[in-house]
């Protein structure tokens, strides 16, 4: 039984035909045992791959493929790294189900075109970032405000070589819910230091990112 209904498959085929420009690699990390949604994630990716010649799935083992794990900076699974003409730092941790699925598709299209949909003003201001910034967006599949937060974070990762952004399906990673005290979604954590809850606008999100950047700049490393 397929994960994506035939009706949606037809719809996606049309979108991919019309919108995809360059090839997108879905780099998937899994392992043989102890991974609750690895199987579903793998199936979902393979179904997506079948819908367009421009979508290619690569699979690696989290335990065995050390060099790839390092290359993509992976620390937990299941994870999908969405790579276009370059690795923008876009990651999906956990199965992209529910509302996250349409985010996955929107991201796919953007990555394939190599172009985000952020406003020119926001794109310009992101250029001032010249130190690594790690954005984690904690979401659940049934949260309607989460997609927007992921989209903004991932698009920022596209616009800046210094930003990498993870969408993390928090129910699959309960230890992270505990670590970051996630009691409401979407919860955004930047550089493990600055955090906020709720879907902010592009401009407001940007202010948080710039604030985290300024804090990281002023840190003195002894």
């Amino acid at each position: 039984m397929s994960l994506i209904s035939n009706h949606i498959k037809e719809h996606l085929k049309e979108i991919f035909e019309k919108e995809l420009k360059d090839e997108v690699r879905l780099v998937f990390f899994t392992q043989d045992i102890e991974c609750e949604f690895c199987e579903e994630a793998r199936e979902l990716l393979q179904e997506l791959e079948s819908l367009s010649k421009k979508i290619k799935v690569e699979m690696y083992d989290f335990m065995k493929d050390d060099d790839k794990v390092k290359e993509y900076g992976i620390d937990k699974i299941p994870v999908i790294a969405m790579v276009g003409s370059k690795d923008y730092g876009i990651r999906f941790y956990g199965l992209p189900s529910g509302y996250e699925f349409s985010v996955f598709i929107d991201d796919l299209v953007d990555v394939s075109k190599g172009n985000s949909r952020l406003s020119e003003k926001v794109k310009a201001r992101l250029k001032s970032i010249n130190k690594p910034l790690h954005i984690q967006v904690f979401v659940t599949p049934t949260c309607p405000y989460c997609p927007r937060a992921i989209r903004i974070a991932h698009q920022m990762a596209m616009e800046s070589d210094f930003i990498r952004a993870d969408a993390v399906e928090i129910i699959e990673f309960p230890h992270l819910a505990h670590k970051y005290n996630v009691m409401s979604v979407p919860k955004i954590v930047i550089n493990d230091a600055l955090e906020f809850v709720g879907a902010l606008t592009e401009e407001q999100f940007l202010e948080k990112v710039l604030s985290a950047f300024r804090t990281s700049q002023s840190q003195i490393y002894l």
Partner: protein
Amino acid sequence: MTYDVIIVGGASAGLTAAIYSSRFKLKTLVITKDIGGQTLLASKIENYPGFMSINGIELIKKFEEQAHNSGAKFVYNEVVEIKEVEDGFMVKTLNEDYKTKTVILAFGQTPKSLEIPGERRFYGKGLSYSAICDGHLFAKKTVMVVGWGDLAMDAALRLCDIADKVYMSYKTGELLGSWELREKLEAKENLELIPYSQVIEIKGEDKIESVVLKDLWTQKIREIKLDGIFVELGYVVKTDFIRDFVKLDVAGKIIVDKSCSTSRLGIFAAGDITDTQSKQIIISAGEGAMAAISAFKYIHRRYGSIVRAYWS
């Protein structure tokens, strides 16, 4: 620059108004905190004409795309004041002011809060206004739902299947609303109902640790240790900032006539913010269109121009 129409609110009413207004070639700006409103929370909508079944986010995405395609501009901010000035109105947000010939008020309803001191502090730290969004995060924990209607009962039902223990606190003696929901709740073993109770304090440091309730009959205080509180008290309209600007009814809703005009010339309103009876996505959308058409007619009457047939 002076806009022709500024629309306050970007959900079903506002987005529809934006589509109509832009297609009339009116300079249209939508000022909104976020897009989608209450429609986003509906996972399955089966009574919006044209769609057998569609999810709220998908439907709003279509509205949004159409509004953008029609030429409407968007600014994401909060409107804090509207003043009448010469030849139009000044719409003030948190950082900028915008001049316009007309305004369409379509900012809908917001979840009612508990209104107790320190409430805001716990938002995202155990306090939530939506069990749909945040319920999952309280697996095996203890939570409380504050509210007595269908919204609260629905939330409690969801939470009973996720959390270890669920309390329901409400000021009334009985839960009000759907029989079906009430029956389903009665079957839940991990649910404790606390009628005639009012939340007077939330306690905790970095997150919620306990809640203090007062019994409205005996005045006795009861403190309950828990991890999360879901406020499901329904919705309110935040029209205080325009109280003296347009006529409001007793519930704070904007009084409109059949053309969605308010008591002030040049100001229109649509959607849940108005005093019209029923609240549905299609009704909000319909009013959005009506308000935009009225704004169009007003602009052409007042500022003179060739009146184009608006159905072409």
